[in-house]
């Protein structure tokens, strides 16, 4: 009886199987990397209505304003808060009061319509996040927001993905700092960080951070 298929087809099933297996791994790998917030969200830098520079206002070599000067709710409420126009005008009715860059701010003050700042750091509505809890535990601003004081226009520095949250929740020690250093953008952990973290946790009587689903998805 004549052969239906040429001889090379003997190898075909193995090649196909190996190919399918390999492609599966590659597809999972590609999705895992490229569809993750590490790739999609980090670096998000929307254009803001007012060319406000954090670098100018917050950098230690410049005006060196404390974060809490404008983001007043950060220690006491879930949201840090965007300052009202009046906060800007506290200074700017005297300083650079005629600057073109501040035209929108003055207009906002006059009309009473808030400035439509574009939100940079977003968390989904099924995530419960509380700024005050993190600050009380000793997590600094820079741990999640990066060096805001070096940004002309604010960009997202960290992925804010669930895995990223969990990494710190499972092992927070490197990110704890003394209460006085919370807003210090230049602070770096010292040599005795492990010891400090242990003491800090004892002092504040904080348990290990919640890693149950219901910690954030309430």
């Amino acid at each position, binding site marked *: *009886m004549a052969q*239906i*298929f040429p001889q090379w087809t*003997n190898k075909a*099933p193995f090649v196909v199987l190996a190919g399918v297996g390999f492609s599966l791994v590659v597809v*999972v*790998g590609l999705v*895992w990397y490229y*569809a*993750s*917030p*590490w790739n999609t969200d980090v670096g998000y830098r929307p254009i803001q209505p007012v060319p406000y520079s954090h670098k100018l206002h917050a950098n230690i070599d410049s005006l060196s304003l404390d974060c809490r000067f404008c983001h007043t709710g950060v220690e006491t409420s879930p949201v840090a808060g965007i300052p009202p126009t009046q906060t800007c005008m506290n200074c700017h009715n005297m300083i650079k009061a005629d600057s073109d860059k501040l035209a929108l701010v003055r207009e906002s003050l006059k009309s009473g319509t808030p400035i439509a700042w574009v939100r940079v750091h977003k968390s989904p509505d099924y995530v419960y996040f509380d700024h005050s809890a993190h600050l009380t535990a000793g997590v600094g601003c820079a741990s999640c927001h990066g060096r805001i004081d070096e940004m002309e226009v604010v960009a997202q520095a960290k*992925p804010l*993905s*669930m*895995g*990223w949250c*969990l*990494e710190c929740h499972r092992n927070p020690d490197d990110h704890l700092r003394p209460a006085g250093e919370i807003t210090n953008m230049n602070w770096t952990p010292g040599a005795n960080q492990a010891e400090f973290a242990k003491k800090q946790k004892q002092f504040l009587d904080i348990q290990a951070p919640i890693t149950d689903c219901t910690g954030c998805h309430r």
Partner: protein
Amino acid sequence: MSILNKKPERDPGAAEAVAGDELLVTGGHTFSSLTDKVSGIVEKKTPQQWYLLFAMAVSGLMVLLGSIGWLVWEGTGIWGLNNPVGWGWAIVNFVFWVGIGHAGTLISAILFLLRQQWRTAINRFAEAMTIFAVICALMFPGIHVGRVWLAYYMFPIPNQMLIWPNFRSPLLWDIFAVVTYFTVSTLFWYVGLIPDLATLRDRAKNLRKKVLGLFALGWRGGNRQWQHYEKAYLMLAGLATPLVLSVHSVVATDFATSLIPGWHTTIFPPYFVAGAVFSGFGMVMTLALIARKIYGLQDIITLNHLEKMNKIILVTGSMVGYSYIMEFFIAWYSGNEFEYFAFINRALGPYAWAYWIMFLCNVITPQIFWFKKLRRSIPVMFVASIFVNIGMWFERFVITVTSLSRDFLPSSWDYYTPSIWDMLTFIGSFGLFFTFFLLFLRFLPMVALAEVKGTLPEADPHNYHKEGGDK
């Protein structure tokens, strides 16, 4: 007339040959007439009933797709779920379909190891039925939270959320058990198909020959190939055998590892397995009777085969009945008032109607098979097999819903009523099942030809030099 065209006839002396047993295949079939019969089903014109049934099945499939589409769009609110009853028909149907799937492996693996040759007449389509039932079953966990795009949570795939399946959850064991079961069943089915696909290939021409040849994997029926093949088949049977017991045991732990009264019982795994085999045979029986009639397979699937299946239905049905009664005894014997209440509530509470449908169908119906006359009556067994299917669906309904609807705290009790979408999804799953099954009947040999031939007297190497057959 040349010798090639001459229809081979059975040697008159051969009929007694198989170790004194009665022949499994009646009607004086020979190797070649069996081949013609079974291959003819897929080669000749399709009977009109097939088109009618297929149209119905595809309509059902469309109903299913529509229901799932609406579910995905709108969410599980379209179902009748309420607060205590968070597991509704989706879970009931899942367990129902997994249970149906058990007959295939039991017939193909356990009966194979026990050398029950009568299995050969029904094993091919029982295995096919298993695979399609498991597909229907696997669909339900995929859609039961209404968010099909999150189905990948069930598998250990790296993701940015650092979410991994929870190994402490029986729902995860479920996925592993059922997917393993599906894989092994499919392999087993396919390996069994290879020689028959080769038979079809050798009878085909052109493209059909190539397609069948592709799937026949170069089978030539040589001695060495058969040796390897039988070893592989034996090993697969060995692998599949524990699965028959494990899959539904794991499904039972979905319930048993929770603390809900009426679920939290150690009898669940064996009781589920018995029920699964029971329901599986019920389904095989229903399908076998229809297929046998439409395709005229009365010689291959004989009354003797059907009677043996009815005996298994009787045995497993009685095991299920024993479990029902034992559950009551233990509920009383445990002294636990919640457990006690759960069972009184089942039999006399708001779902008593479902409980007694279940009891009548599953416990009383199979008892008619104590009588040989009824065991061998086609109409009786057809009706009984359908009752078995109904009863086993209600068993899952009773277990899932009665326990949830009345748990520890009376203030949280509620009555569960399915919505039209629950029903359409369930009806649609039959559409999915029958679409697959009818395609199988149309394109693949529905009887394991090579194996059935092995039960003929001519397959015995000593057949031709026995007394009466001096050749």
